């Protein structure tokens, strides 16, 4: 697979390591009420769809940026690549 890095252009997926569903950006507040249950769902439960999947890839052998890759889990076709930092900022989660 080729991942089209927003800053570096097309890169071989071998340069990356895979973390999982991009919902891992939405880390719950550990101080809030019901944090136990929220962290169980956050850490252990997944949508695991067949079809488009937004997921976190780390450019370990490149610029060490985190990317949000939208990829079809049935065809392995990659439809969009964003910097995870931009995605997190848009949610107000990153400075």
């Amino acid at each position, binding site marked *: 697979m080729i991942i089209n890095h927003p800053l570096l252009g097309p890169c071989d997926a071998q340069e990356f390591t895979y*973390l*999982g569903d991009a919902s891992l950006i939405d880390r719950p507040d550990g101080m809030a009420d019901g944090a136990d249950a929220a962290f*169980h769902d956050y850490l*252990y439960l997944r*949508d695991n769809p*067949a079809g488009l999947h937004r*997921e976190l890839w780390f450019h370990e052998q490149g610029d060490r940026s985190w990317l949000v890759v939208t990829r079809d*889990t*049935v065809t392995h076709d990659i439809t969009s690549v964003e910097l995870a930092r931009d995605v997190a900022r848009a949610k107000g989660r990153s400075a």
Partner: protein
Amino acid sequence: MRYSGFRVLQQALTGHKGWQPAWRDPAPKPRYDIVIIGGGGHGLATAYYLARQFGQANIAVLEKGWIGGGNVGRNTTIIRSNYMLDGNEPFYEFSLKLWEGLEQDFNYNAMVSQRGILNLIHSDAQRDAFTRRGNAMILNGADAELLTAEQVRREYPFLNFDNARFPIKGGLAQRRGGTVRHDAVAWGYARGADSRGVDIIQNCEVTGFRIENGTCLGVETSRGFIGAGKVGVAVAGNSSRMMAKAGMRLPIESHVLQAFVTEGLKPVLPGVITFGAGHFYCSQSDKGGLVFGGDLDGYNSYAQRGNLPVVEDVAEGGMALFPGLGRVRLLRMWGGIMDMSMDGSPIIDRTHIDGLYFNGGWCYGGFKATPASGWCFAHLLATDTPHPTATAYRFDRFKRGRMIDEKGMGAQPNLH
């Protein structure tokens, strides 16, 4: 029809005109006591043991394609019980004992071959870890034998013992491990279940559950509604998709695992070997092909095929261990979809919906577990209590902090 040597001889003398189909092709009835979703190894084994062991009579197995078309026909056919943790080892040893009597039990030649499995040791630390594992196996009634490098060399002289980076220092052998003809497992269980009255309904895709007031009343299928007293789901890589129809999110990701077979060779590899320094496992099929595999591709996938970097990685592992492999041509490669759980161990449990039961999360260890998985799931479906060897395989173990993490990897499914 009972199969035997006498039957083969009789049929040979009468032109093989008396053989009958091994199972029927029934139309679905409007209602069953128990409906199993998934006509793979685990689903068929569940139906078989429900009928044979737990006295259930009105059972159907629903399969969207043809039986045995998924992972039971896509694995590397290895059976073993070399696990370490308390939640796992009694279950897998139960499974290995069932394998040992399986062919006589269901009267079908599954070619169970206890040719032994050998996990190679490449460092002192690894010898310590494998010694501990072997002791755990023996404590749970399994067999384990620690071999020196010389003992390994006598049995496998062609391995690369003096590799500068990963020399072979010995091995942990389980002599009762081995291989099984994987398709025959599905067919044998199907035939055994069918002869006990189980309806095996192929080309029948489940499209939804009918759930009212927290109780599952049956399943909507491509061949109409089928009512059920209890519904058991055993759909491996499609577990998340199926349970999403009941509104559940699972602690599972689906990943692709590739496997390979070479051209046929004369007997060269007597047992199953695994590389302890990389991830590579290999055995020789009775047709002569070397069957081998390695790591997951590592990303979520429902495509039954992988990518080339993992092919290269597996081939490198094979060459490091077994240099003679380089002269052999690859015949076929394929992929299967693994239901990778968050701790690398399976789930056989009730759900919060009455009448809906789940069996999945087998990661890439599902084949060896087939008999015990079927038996334990049948036990749960028939009695509403877990089988004594499967009490740890609960949904709520993540919430309670009772993970069964054999590899110690944490909640990262692609690393188990």
